[in-house]
């Protein structure tokens, strides 16, 4: 700790609401056609109605405010912000809420809580082992209330709630890192949601809007001994990694404030653009956030034009 840390005068900025920075980086010349609740989309009954629409008086009306997506005969209206709607195969990051008889209840930012069955997790001792009564008693040793997990959606129940599974080594309990919550429409469906960024951080971008940042671990071989993996997970994280995690978190917040889509390339561009601010907490200023988002949008446009 050097002398500068003892000086407690901080940097406090108080702004008037009228001087608020406008975070919009969208170009105004190509806004699509928007539909608002109660607006008639089409009068014909030929179309199949998807999410965000309803039928009244023989015409198709929109029920949310957003952009219409038409795929052949299916019409849906997608709102700007909504709760997560799960689909099979999505990667999600969730928090365990309850331990029930043979399953865990997991919160995933959707309208109903998701379920992780005991038969859908990998227990130590081999994959094809039958779940005994003893396993039910020791469920709490595996996952308890408040733990964070990464999982994949196995199936969707009739009422819309999700059934998760962690039947692969890349899923499971998450140990040390930072969770960032954003709204799900900013996350695009990709083939790979686990990224290792060159700055030494591994990112899990959950489709439900939960993003997990953790310091990158060396590639571990399958450890038969559970105690050794636990020791690996609880190694203290050094301050350079912590600063990188904080910088990434602020970059993601800057992208979210300007409502830009999040994926590994946009997060990486935002990180590189933010390096010119040496002090990580400078990224909390609204002007700095707008600047980072604007430069990132610029680089993404250049990438798309190529």
């Amino acid at each position: 700790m050097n002398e500068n840390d003892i000086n407690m005068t901080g940097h406090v900025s108080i702004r008037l609401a009228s001087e608020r920075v406008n975070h919009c980086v969208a170009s105004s010349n190509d806004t699509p056609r928007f539909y608002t609740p109660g607006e008639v989309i089409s009068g014909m009954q030929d179309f199949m109605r998807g999410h965000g629409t309803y039928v009244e008086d023989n015409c198709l009306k929109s029920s949310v405010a957003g952009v219409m997506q038409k795929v052949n005969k299916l019409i849906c209206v997608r709102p700007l912000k909504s709760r997560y709607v799960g689909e099979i195969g999505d990667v999600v990051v969730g928090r365990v809420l309850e331990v029930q008889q043979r399953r865990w209840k997991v919160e995933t930012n959707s309208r109903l809580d998701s379920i992780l069955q005991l038969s859908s997790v990998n227990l130590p001792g081999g994959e094809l082992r039958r779940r005994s009564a003893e396993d039910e008693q020791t469920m709490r040793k595996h996952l308890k209330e408040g733990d964070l997990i990464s999982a994949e959606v196995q199936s969707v129940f009739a009422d819309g709630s999700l059934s998760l599974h962690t039947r692969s080594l890349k899923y499971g309990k998450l140990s040390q890192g930072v969770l960032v919550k954003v709204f799900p429409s900013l996350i695009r469906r990709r083939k790979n949601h686990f990224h290792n960024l060159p700055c030494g951080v591994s990112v899990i971008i959950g489709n439900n809007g939960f993003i997990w940042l953790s310091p990158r671990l060396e590639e571990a071989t399958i450890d038969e001994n559970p105690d050794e993996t636990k020791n690996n997970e609880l190694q203290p994280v050094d301050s350079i990694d912590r600063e990188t995690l904080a910088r990434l978190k602020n970059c993601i917040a800057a992208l979210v404030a300007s409502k830009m889509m999040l994926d590994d390339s946009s997060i990486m561009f935002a990180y590189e653009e933010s390096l010119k601010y040496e002090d990580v907490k400078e990224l909390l200023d609204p002007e700095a956030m707008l600047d980072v988002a604007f430069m990132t949008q610029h680089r993404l446009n250049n990438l798309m034009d190529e």
Partner: protein
Amino acid sequence: MPGPDLLSSQGLRLDGRRPNELRRIRCKLGVFTQPDGSAYLEQGNTKVLAAVYGPHQASKSKSSTEAVVVNCQYSMATFSTGERKNRPRGDRKSLEMSLHLRQALTAAIKTELYPRSQIDIYIEVLQADGGAYCASVNAATLALVDAGVPLRAYVCACTASMAWHGGSPAPLLDVGHVEEAAGGVVLTVASLPSTGSIALLEMSHRLHSDYFENVLSRALQGCRDIEVILDKAVRDHLAEGWTKQDVVTV
């Protein structure tokens, strides 16, 4: 005879408006980052904040298997009225307003889509200058649109009153606090203007049935005008939030 001075000889009201003029409405969506949806609305000097959480899993005692449970909480800030108000929540007026809000908003939300879920709507009145209920309904509609909750149509609310101009009746639109306190009946209407249906109708004093149709139609016209203003605010908000790589049409 109620309030002869509500309308001057030139046909101007106590705050200088014409009988069929609304107060200026300014609104903004997405003012908070934590709730799923939020909105801020000013109608004249009445200022209201609305926040929507949901739909999320309903607690076991409240969950219903057919439809979503809509939970409203109406609260007035202690500094919102002329005299400092001690109980912001839980007093009888707040509970009654919460029930009325629930009635108006349940009429618009497509509740059958979300069984076993719950939507929480919190309204905070920062400054009350008459028409606080109407401003709350309008702000709650914007917050629901911001949260992406499916609605049948916009819900708009407006008040109307009755005054006499040289012997002939003249209905007044959008009563402020001064006009309310001067006496005179206040009719509050919450309606879905695009379908023309009425979700809530309330009247403070008595009104002769001959004049009722007139006052009601003036209030419904006010609701239609408010819907145009809210729709424009929603479209402006959408235009700001849409980035280029989002749009996919096949």
